[in-house]
């Protein structure tokens, strides 16, 4: 489990690699919270490398999204596939978040 972050113009891209379950999700949470603490306003989470996400992982994403919303920031996802995509569908996260097919299209949309 690891999270890589990079900055594309004013959008911060966090790439999550591995599993987000009850054991590993706290690390992702720490990284995302520290990004928020730095005052990032546009956060794109790239889930291309996400193998598995549990309800604890969803909760972390939700918590991050809620904090972002409180300060009128934008948080979006890209590259949903496999299990993660299924979980997003089942849990209705598609209806809560903006999900892009790729990082490029996300950056194009968010960059405006």
């Amino acid at each position, binding site marked *: 489990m690891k999270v890589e972050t990079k900055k594309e113009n004013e959008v911060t891209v966090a790439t999550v690699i591995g599993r987000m379950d*009850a054991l590993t999700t706290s690390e992702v949470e720490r990284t995302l919270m520290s990004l928020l603490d730095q005052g990032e306003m546009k956060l794109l989470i790239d889930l291309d490398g996400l193998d598995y996400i549990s*309800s*604890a992982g969803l909760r972390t994403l*939700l918590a991050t999204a*809620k904090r972002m919303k409180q300060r009128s920031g934008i948080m979006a996802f890209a590259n949903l596939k496999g299990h993660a995509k299924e979980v997003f569908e*089942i*849990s*209705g*996260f598609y209806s*809560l978040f903006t999900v892009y097919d790729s990082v490029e299209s996300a950056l194009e949309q968010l960059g405006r």
Partner: protein
Amino acid sequence: MLRNRGIVFKLIALVVTAGGFIFLCVFGYSYFFSRRTIEENINESARNLAQATVGRIEASLRSVQKIPLNDRYFVESTPLDPAALHDLLFNVLESNADICGAAIAFEPGKRQNVRGFAPYVYRSEWTIAFTELASERIDYTLADWYQIPRELSGPEWSEPYYGEGQDRTLKSTYSVPFYMTAKGQKRLAGVIAVDISLKRLQAIVSSVKVLQTGYAFLISQNGTVVTHPRSELIMNATIFGMAEEAGDTSLRELGRRMIKGESGLVPLGPGPLGSASLMYYAPIPSNNWSLAVVFPVAELMADVRRFNMIAFILAVAGLAALSGAVVIIAHSITRPLRTMAQAAGHIAEGNFDAPLPVSLSGDEVGVMTKAFEDMRISLKDYIERLTETTAAKQAIESELKVAREIQMSIIPKTFPSFPAGTGVDMHAWIEPARDVGGDFYDFFFLDRSRLCAIIADVSDKGVPASLFMAVTKTLIKAKAAPGKAPGDVLTTVNNELATGSETNMFVTVFFAVLDLKTGELLYANGGHNPPILIRSQGKPMPIEKTGNPVVGVIEGIEYGSKGLTLYPGDMLLLFTDGVTEAVNLRGELFGDERLLKELSAAADPSPSGRIEAVRQALARHSEGAPQADDITMLAVRYEGPLMEREG
């Protein structure tokens, strides 16, 4: 061997071994060198002493040799005059104390002087006496002193012999032949002989003393002992005789070298010449006798031996003292260690108040004692804290147990739940991953014919999840009402839960209302896995999704409702993701496909039979891997509108 011994023993063994080794090295080195130095000194002084003695003997002999050589000229150059010869001989004795007799013996002639003529002057007791050797009885020309120089045509010292008369002193005679020239032909005219007493030589030789038992002795050309501290050997023994008697071949060889006129230093074993010794021998050039100086090795080495003995005693005493010191030091180390070991034993038994030895020293033992004391204190604190924590944890665990019991008590677990003829058969199974889980299911009648079935999964586990679950369960039950669409119920519940929620805890909920009269099923889904519909004829498959998100996070979401119709014998399986996401040791998920397969393969198509089939498949799949998430299943089979028939 050493491993199980105490520190004292090990230290002593080590110190004594090392000390002994060092001592042996030093001792051996000094012994070797002192011995060699002494041997060198012996060689040097033996040679010097022997040469000096030889020189003195030689000087004494030469002074005697001069006399007959001088007289020879007189005799050869002067016409024969008995009175003059008599005076000459008298003068010789008077002027040379060493000489005890002198003779001028003429070769007997053929016509005249047939008996020979040999005036002899000798020392009598108090005076100098004269005699004529030539007589009827004695033919002096047959005596060795006359014959040997005559035959050898040169001066010659005789073998030692005892003089006749009362004094019986040991003598040796130096004889010099003299010649007359007549008719141009040189022929032997006689022999001048000088007797000397060997007392003076004996005095010179016996003055040689080496330490207590060292001595010198002289042997003649034949190997006869001439002087020796043991007077019984003088003239009675030869070196060859002694060698023969002792069977000592090396002594015989030595004797040969001595009479050949060689010189050298030889070690002598114990034998006829005394105990083990070193002997230096050198020839006396004048008469070819040989002088030997005997050095007693044992005596010479006595100093070395004494030195070695003292060194050895000192070493033993030193090692003993060292051992004593080691014992004291080792005890000073081991005493606190032993006390410490005892104290540690007490502490090990749980007595943390056991007193530790007080060490005031700053050495390693002191440091260890200090560390040990710190350990005891922190161990004591730790154990106290641990006891408290354990007690607290036990309290929490017992509370958790109670919480689990309460949680389980609010979930209906009695099957069949409804009497036969209700029109529905149900079965459920819940297995929390921890003591208190976040899954739950519920079912209840809204009115006489409408049955609500709920399955939910709170996004956490433990007590917080169970509280959230209880709230959710209560809310759903409170908000559900006849005629109210399931989606509207979830909308209301979501708003209630999400308002002011700081925890970001959410719950996925599937909520369905089955009309038992018609088999019509209305449902709403808040982010939960779509249940599986198992028609009595046909393959199991998930029901249609509603696309609504999880409940309890974001206010104002409108949850939609969908519907489908169950025919008698159709079954709906509600489950949580603990089923499909059960992981085995290789990290493989149980999966949706496997769930569908196990459901259709179940031998017993009843709700309990199918749940049991899935349960067993899960157990096989997990291979003993720890359960990561709560596992919950609720199966509802529609039996047909039986109530309608009865009613």
